[in-house]
């Protein structure tokens, strides 16, 4: 009798059950690949949606705060009308996105807006990116608004125009202030992408679910998926905490 067999025989029954469950859910038919591939999809969607969200959010934040700051003192004319229009569009965007569940937005994107496209990853990136952009916009806008107006006046009094003042003086300070909040938004987004299965995208959560449906055993695959999310989230939370400490220390 070899030692391995001995060891197996010596295992308590629950441990043996756990081992066979593990083999059934992850090893047989290479089922672990559902998890691996799902993780890659989740990472892809989260990464590109975050990028889109930040670009879109920054744009909307700048439109909104420019409107609030400049519109009251602008002379009537084409620039003022244009600003009013893009501001109105931004406000509709913020209201609709933040007023409806993200899962419904995802389904509308897939089944209505992009019904002719079959690129599920791209559709998910667009849906989550547009969703995230609304929240990022409010984060960045609050960052811009939190900068003392004296900073703005100091820039303008040196001769910088509005855009230069924003670029060289306001945005760098605002961005530094909201970096932790933006990082948190990334974590929220990562977890939110777990609803991608609603449109048949095989992300991490759906990967676990597929295994469950094949093996009729829910415990292992779902707990494994939960554990992976948790580890990733804890890792990034730790990064955010370190970032916050760094920023506090460099607080000048």
């Amino acid at each position: 009798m070899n030692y391995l067999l001995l060891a197996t025989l010596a295992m308590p029954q629950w441990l043996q059950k756990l081992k066979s469950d593990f083999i059934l859910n992850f090893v047989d038919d290479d089922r672990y690949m559902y998890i691996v591939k799902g993780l890659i999809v989740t990472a892809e969607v989260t990464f590109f949606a975050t990028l889109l969200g930040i670009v879109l959010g920054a744009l909307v934040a700048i439109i909104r705060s420019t409107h609030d700051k400049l519109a009251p003192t602008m002379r009537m004319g084409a620039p003022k009308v244009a600003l009013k229009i893009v501001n109105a569009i931004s406000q509709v965007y913020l209201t609709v996105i933040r007023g409806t569940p993200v899962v419904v937005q995802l389904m509308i994107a897939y089944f209505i807006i992009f019904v002719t496209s079959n690129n599920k990853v791209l559709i998910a990136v667009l849906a989550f990116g547009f969703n995230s952009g609304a929240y990022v916009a409010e984060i960045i806008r609050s960052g811009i608004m939190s900068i003392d107006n004296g900073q703005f006046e100091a820039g303008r009094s040196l001769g910088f125009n509005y855009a230069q003042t924003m670029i060289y003086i306001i945005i760098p300070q605002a961005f530094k202030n909201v970096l932790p909040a933006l990082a948190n938004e990334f974590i929220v987004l990562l977890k939110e992408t777990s609803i991608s299965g609603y449109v048949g995208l095989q992300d991490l959560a759906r990967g676990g679910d597929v295994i469950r449906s094949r093996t009729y055993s829910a415990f292992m695959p779902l707990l494994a998926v939960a554990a992976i999310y948790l580890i990733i989230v804890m890792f990034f939370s730790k990064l955010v905490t370190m970032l916050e400490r760094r920023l506090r220390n460099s607080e000048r």
Partner: protein
Amino acid sequence: MSANNDVIIDVKGLKKYYKGDEIKALDDITTTIKKGEVVAIIGPSGSGKSTFLRSLNLLEVPTDGTILFENTDITSPETNINVLRQKMGMVFQHFNLFPHLSVMDNMTLAPRKLLKMSKDDAEKKAKDLLKMVALEDRARAFPSQLSGGQKQRIAIVRALMMSPDVLLFDEPTSALDPEMVGEVLDVMKKLAQEGMTMAVVTHEMGFAREVASRVIFMENGRIALEGTPEEVFNNPSNERLKTFLAKVL
């Protein structure tokens, strides 16, 4: 248009109203500031001193009236105010240094971006100015590492980096601990002696008396009295001015 080359700022019928015409922050101000003059603007709180000063570089947009800066109407839609502001430095009560930039970068940002000055030239100029205010060793410091008096001296030389034709000060020493007021006033005095044109809103009557070439006493958005320091301080005929001076002196 005034063709007098000695006049740097020419203000006519300047009005600034808030809430329709409920608050008359400035109510028909007419005055001129000539090259090399140091004009001290005094008066009780709420009398419109800041609004007047901030109108001069269009941080406040007047309700009515004209302001000529070097013979250009600053409120005209054809005027590029950003270019004019390069020639009018401003120093604020709360310094408004850029906290994310070092002292050196605070000073060189505007000349490099706006005047396209080279990094070397800008840093050389900054070092000379830092020497003038005895802060040459703080070039690499960040604003939070400076005392109030040091911050204000940096704010002054930051404005000087643009080689302005006039400097506007809005209560430059009001936010300072008493022991730091002197070091800032000394810098301003030195600038005055070098012939810099300045408009200074201040509660420092000693400074106004000693350094100003003209004193403007404001009240309720109007110029209640203006004259040389002797005329204003030595024998105040105006009752309100007497009351005001009794309070601040």
